[in-house]
């Protein structure tokens, strides 16, 4: 069942590991435990997948350098879920089938994209293969919400157990976190909210509104618009101005005119503009044109560079690869922690099994119970498999560019 590319990649990874783990051949005296890594690694996805993969491989290398885990050598099985240079759910599903078929694979790291996760999760759940994603933020993968479709998250967990975990937080934390940031850090008291009526945008705006009110702020208005036929935001902006707001919030994406709204604010209302990770893009900057400065956005991930705990990791990684964008990315530290959590869980499972090779169920249980301090901070998992490490980072446009300003741990 091995696809040619999969086989090639896996062997490349093996050779790579053999090469860098040469001095640790003594580590694997009792045998080998395998960790699957599924990420989009080719084409346009290279910049997403490769730095993330590097984080995972770095963790595995460090484990082997220390003599492996409980006497077992750790081996990575790396597969690419990109087809024609774009992440592909079907390819992801095939890759997971391959991990499932290999009984030596005890857990996997990945995938990168939420839609790939949707295709992979039912397969992994049925086979009870634990997985930790470094970067999936779609909340419906793990949490039950009225707006989740296709029977999610239950339909993604046919095995009935919590086997899917993630080390990044979910999109639905962004709205409340932004509200906290607006009221507590920026000291904003009155907001006007606009959303693009889509699942992501309206969800974000609704969550923001709820928390903004809880924090004692006033919501002067909340309107939705149809992005396909609306260009006129001026009357809306007039209304916001008349209401005397000190903040404008937009729930939506750059493709739904986030930047156009910001641009039209010029000359009408001069207050900060705020949105979620859907506007933290270059397209937003282009559309907002000369009025981009003073916009705020959140990203549902830690900015590891700014975290004290990350220093050791960053120093080590610099020695292993480099911190250039081809080697190191936004999710490298996440993948590093995800892989270390798996390694730690495998260790726990081996010990519980009297020093013998454990099964996937034991590893799954150990991951769920993990209490880990790593490069992105302190991680434990709740019953859904979501991380307790709910850190949101904030970015602000200054001088026409998105710049990191702050991150908070959300205690919602």
């Amino acid at each position, binding site marked *: 069942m091995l696809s040619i590319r999969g086989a090639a990649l896996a062997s490349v990874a093996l050779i790579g590991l053999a090469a860098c783990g040469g001095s640790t051949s003594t580590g694997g005296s009792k045998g080998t435990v395998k960790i699957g890594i599924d990420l989009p690694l080719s084409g346009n996805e290279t910049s997403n997948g490769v730095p993330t993969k590097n984080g995972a491989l770095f963790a595995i290398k460090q484990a082997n350098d220390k003599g492996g885990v409980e006497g077992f050598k750790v081996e990575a099985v790396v597969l690419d879920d990109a087809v024609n240079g774009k992440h592909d759910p079907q390819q992801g599903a095939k890759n997971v089938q391959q991990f499932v078929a290999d009984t030596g694979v005890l857990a996997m790291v990945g995938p990168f994209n939420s839609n790939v996760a949707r295709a992979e999760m039912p397969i992994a759940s049925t086979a009870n293969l634990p997985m930790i994603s470094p970067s999936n933020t779609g909340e419906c993968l793990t949490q039950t919400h009225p707006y989740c479709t296709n029977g999610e998250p239950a339909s993604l967990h046919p095995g009935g157990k919590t086997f899917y975990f993630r080390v990044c937080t979910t999109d639905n934390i962004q709205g409340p976190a932004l509200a906290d940031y607006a009221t507590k850090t920026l000291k904003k008291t009155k907001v006007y909210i606009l959303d693009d009526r889509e699942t992501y945008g309206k969800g974000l705006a609704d969550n923001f509104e709820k928390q903004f009110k809880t924090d004692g702020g006033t919501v002067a208005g909340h*309107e*939705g*618009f149809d992005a*396909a*036929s*609306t*260009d*006129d935001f*001026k*009357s*809306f902006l*007039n*209304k916001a101005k*008349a*209401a005397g707001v000190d903040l404008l919030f937009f729930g939506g994406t750059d*493709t739904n*005119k986030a*930047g*156009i709204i910001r*641009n*039209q604010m*010029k*000359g*009408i209302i001069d207050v900060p503009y705020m949105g979620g990770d859907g506007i933290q893009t270059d397209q937003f900057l*282009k*559309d907002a*044109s*000369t009025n981009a400065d003073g916009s705020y956005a959140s990203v549902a991930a830690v900015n590891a560079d700014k975290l004290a705990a990350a220093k050791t990791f960053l120093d080590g990684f610099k020695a292993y690869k480099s911190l250039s964008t081809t080697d190191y990315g936004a999710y490298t530290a996440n993948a590093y922690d995800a892989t270390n959590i798996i390694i730690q869980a495998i260790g726990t499972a081996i010990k519980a099994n009297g020093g013998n090779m454990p099964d996937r169920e034991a590893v799954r249980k150990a991951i769920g119970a993990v209490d880990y301090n790593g490069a992105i901070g302190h991680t434990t998992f709740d019953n859904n498999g979501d991380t307790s490490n709910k850190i949101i980072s904030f970015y602000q446009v200054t001088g026409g560019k998105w710049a990191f300003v702050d991150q908070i741990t959300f205690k919602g």
Partner: protein
Amino acid sequence: MHETLLVVAGINTDPAYFGEQLVLGISIGAIYALIALGYTMVYGIVELINFAHGDVFTVGAFFSFFCISLIGAGNFSGLMLIPLLLVVFLATMLFNGLLGATIERVAYRRLRNSPRLTPLITAVGMSFLLEGILYVIPGIGPNFKHYPDLLPTNSWTIAGVNVSAKGVFVVVVALVLMLMLQRFIQGTRLGKAMRATAQDRDAAQLMGVDIDRTIALTFFIGSALAGAGGIIYGLYYNSIYFTLGFRTGIVAFTAAVLGGIGNIAGAAIGGFMIGIVFSMASGYLSQQWSDVVIFSVLILVLVFKPTGLLGARVADKA
């Protein structure tokens, strides 16, 4: 007393706010008026609702978008702004005019004596055709495009009302074009031929008017005005996309009906009125309600006063 009620109902009673919505409505209305002129002129002369007209407007927006890219948006600054914009306007209006005349030649002329439903369906088809072509042109695609922000962003406060340079530009350009149209129709031989054709096609032909040429000219002028509308729209909102003409076109059509379809002055007045209805609806109700209100106006006019405000006065039809 009444004011308290309004405040309690969440309605803004500030006269400056009303003024600002009014200014917005007039600016938007100027764009609708320019497009409505095309609907009304074509209807006046061949009694066809040219549903492709909204998409001709979109073509104008994109043609000027590419013109500006070609010249380089950075060059539109300082003293060069006005001459370069003039070039863009002329090129776009010429291109759009030729497009309109071509559409008439290819799609409508042979159907001129067919049952009235036939060219109407053809017009709908032409609308989809144009949208499809725009969609597949490389560099357009499904997402909206950021139209360069060329106009000065100054604004002034007049009697507490915020008036932007952009808004003034839109209204001035639209009024100048309308005035030129008026002079053309009332003051030239070709304009006279258009009026004659609208009044009685056969009689005009007997009097030596070249009907085909006059009708083509009508399409040319209507489409050129829509092209100018496309540029203004882009400059004003900075956002254009391939389905832009669908909603905008139907709103402009509503404006034409409101003013009295076939009546040029009616289209201009209807355009401004619909613009104000739009801005008041979104300012005092919500953006979501504005289309509901606009199309309610369309239905009410069709039911209670199908000839519109000024009426389709045959003698003035052009």
